[in-house]
């Protein structure tokens, strides 16, 4: 009799043990769910105050070299719109002039970022071809500047725009070094990294970036990459497209039409 009760107790013990084991093993999963509550909320689209949903967009820019007249209105307007210092070292966008001579020499210049225009420089050598190349942050899909930021102050936003959190930037300049396109600079007053934001304050309010707005020859095209009815998608369809430094696998979102092989 005594033996039987013992066995029954043992059984009970085993049952209890298995129950407890199940509870204990489920606990981390349950806690995991609790902790991920915010993460799950994050799956809901992040919306800005004015109703702009970054996740619904993917911005890009097209630049037609054949249309650029090198007037520098884009660089000038950019400085006005984004309070970029007027000194000739700080540019979010600028225009370069390429001159390729018949002996193979390539001259590239951009006096004051093209804001005051270019001068005709005559040499005895015969110029083979010449053109203007507007430069801007390429808003890489695989941005090297974001990889090197030690504090997470520069980032690729959900709409593909690479931004700088100037309140969080420590001004270490790693990103300036890392950018293969020279699109970044250190703001002389705030001592934080700065760059083109595609005029984020404008595109979130359904306006064009200011360089696109003022371009007198429509050399610049701005729009969505993911939507079919977008001027940019048409631009990509109608032109032969090149990107800058394709070998670096940065996957730029600034596309050039009629790009010359000398452009680096």
């Amino acid at each position, binding site marked *: 009799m005594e033996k039987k009760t013992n066995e029954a107790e043992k059984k009970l013990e085993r049952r209890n043990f298995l129950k407890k084991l199940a509870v204990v093993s489920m606990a981390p999963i349950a806690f995991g769910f609790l902790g991920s509550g915010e993460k799950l909320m*994050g799956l809901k689209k992040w919306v800005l105050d004015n109703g702009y949903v970054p996740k619904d967009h993917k911005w890009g820019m097209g630049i037609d070299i054949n249309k*650029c007249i*090198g007037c520098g209105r884009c660089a000038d*307007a950019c400085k006005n*719109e984004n309070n970029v210092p007027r000194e000739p070292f700080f540019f979010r966008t600028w225009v370069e002039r390429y001159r390729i001579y018949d002996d193979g020499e390539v001259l590239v210049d951009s006096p004051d970022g093209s804001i005051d225009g270019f001068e005709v420089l005559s040499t005895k050598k015969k110029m083979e071809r010449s053109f203007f190349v507007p430069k801007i942050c390429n808003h890489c899909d695989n941005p090297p500047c974001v990889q090197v930021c030690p504090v*997470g102050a520069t*980032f690729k936003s959900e709409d593909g725009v690479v931004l700088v959190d100037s309140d969080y930037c420590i001004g270490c300049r790693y990103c300036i070094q890392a950018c293969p396109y020279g699109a970044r600079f250190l703001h002389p007053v705030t001592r934080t990294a700065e760059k083109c934001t595609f005029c984020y304050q404008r595109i979130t309010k359904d*306006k*064009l970036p200011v360089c696109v707005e003022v371009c*007198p020859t429509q050399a610049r095209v701005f729009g969505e990459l993911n939507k079919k009815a977008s001027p940019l998608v048409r631009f990509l369809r109608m032109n032969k497209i090149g990107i800058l430094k394709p070998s670096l696998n940065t996957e730029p979102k600034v596309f050039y039409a009629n790009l010359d092989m000398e452009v680096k």
Partner: protein
Amino acid sequence: MKNFLAKIPEQVKRLSVLLVILVIVFIVVRSTLIPNDFGKIGHYRASAVQNIANNELHYAGQEVCVDCHDDIVAIKTKGYHKNLSCEVCHGPSIKHTESPDEFKPQIQRNRSFCPTCHEYLPSRPTGFPQIVSASHNPRKICVSCHNPHNPVPPVTPKGCEACHAEIAATKSLSFHSEIPCTKCHVANEKHKLSPRDNLPTKPTTREFCGQCHAEDANSPKDIPRINMATHEPRYVCWQCHYPHLPEAQ
């Protein structure tokens, strides 16, 4: 249980207390240093996106100008500048949309402004209208001849200036600029085909110039006068004066 605790070596107990303190300190420091919204969407502060989107705008954009200035837009949309945004020339003007009377957009009257686009540069795409401003009516501002809202390409010269461009340019600077060529020269149709065989006429008499410049001539008062009888009567006027750019004031 007491037995079990007693079995643990003293140093392990102390170290584990230290470990717990360190972990707590780490968690406290980390949660105070890292902003709340960091990592909410990605490896960055979510509110930074909002901050950047809140930056101040300076350019209103073409579509805003259209609302009020429909008269100018009606002209502009027909001309060569139809694709130009207003703020290319008039500057950043979002303040003008907020208080139209207090803030007036700039108006470019400077001769150096239009050449930023239209000055000749070999790098510019062919076909884009360009001038060499040093020789293109250097004394006039652009808007005196070209309406910036509807710039018209120059008319191809068809009359005398098609061939005699240099004389026409000189004459355009002179007091005689308003006098048509045919007032002094008579050229028959054949001059266009074989110019040297059919030379146009020149004034042959002093009285021809005297129609305006004689003392008793019936002409505006500010035209300089001479005494036809005493002023070098043996010469025809153009033997001394160059009628396309007369020097007398």
